[in-house]
């Protein structure tokens, strides 16, 4: 639904999508949205790696944590933010 506001009269009307607009939105959902959603997962994973997994990695380098703990955190983050085709 599209809200149309006439700036001269102040009249507000609700207008249904045109066939062209519906086709454009369907094409977006089919062709673009999967990539958008995948990128969203990549962003979330990157932020979680930096905040949660990377410190464990450096601790493991110093012998303050195990490699297994770091790998478990990475796996947990991947499970928390699955790609759309993995969910």
């Amino acid at each position, binding site marked *: *639904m*599209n*809200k*149309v*506001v*006439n*700036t*001269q*009269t*102040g009249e*507000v009307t*609700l207008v249904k*999508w045109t066939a062209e607009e519906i086709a*454009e*939105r369907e094409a*977006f*959902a089919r062709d*673009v*949205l999967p990539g*958008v*959603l995948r*990128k*969203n997962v990549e*962003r979330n994973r*990157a*932020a979680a790696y*930096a*905040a949660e997994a990377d410190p464990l990695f450096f601790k493991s380098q110093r012998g303050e944590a195990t490699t297994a703990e770091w790998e478990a955190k990475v796996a947990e983050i991947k499970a928390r933010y699955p790609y759309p085709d993995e969910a």
Partner: protein
Amino acid sequence: MALRLNGSTSGYVEIDAPAAAGSNTLTLPDGNGTSGQYLQTNGSGGLSWQSASNLTRVSSQSLSGVGSVTFTGIPSTARVIYLVLDQASADNTTGGYLHIRLGDSGGIETTGYLSNGAFINTASACDSFGSTTGFNLDNNDRGNKHSGVITIVNQSGNVWCSSGTTTVNNSGFMNAGRKELSGTLTQVQFLTTAGTFDDGTASLLYEVES
């Protein structure tokens, strides 16, 4: 030579001509104008009351439940347009683009935009995104509540350039763009390319060239 008008009890008001006055006539407007107006000349001696601002504000529009808001009837003399967003967000399940599109009497144009945007958040994560289908504010709006202003300025003819910044709770977004319309701008649209808006308002203001 001056025209002096004496006050009824004391003092006077005087209207004076320059020493070398030439032959000139200034014609006052009828009426008193409205509060804050000033006298403007038309260059031929005609004076009229004018408002100091050429800014027109269109009432704020709720976005909830619609996929786009289109502001129509923008006058051909508009040269600067401001789109003001307050907590504008699309629903948090779709991840669509937030677009601003321009249109003329032939309708909203959906191609031919040069647009890039970027964001950086408080965790120093950043991303950039381009689009040819609209001035792109966000390429993955999943509940981002955008507040800010996008300014769209007529460069010349039917060429319009935009720039803007918005903020969400933990990120800053910036964007800029260019679009040449096929005709005179008459409408501006704010839309999400997937789903609907679920919160916020959009306001439009424009300045005309007098």
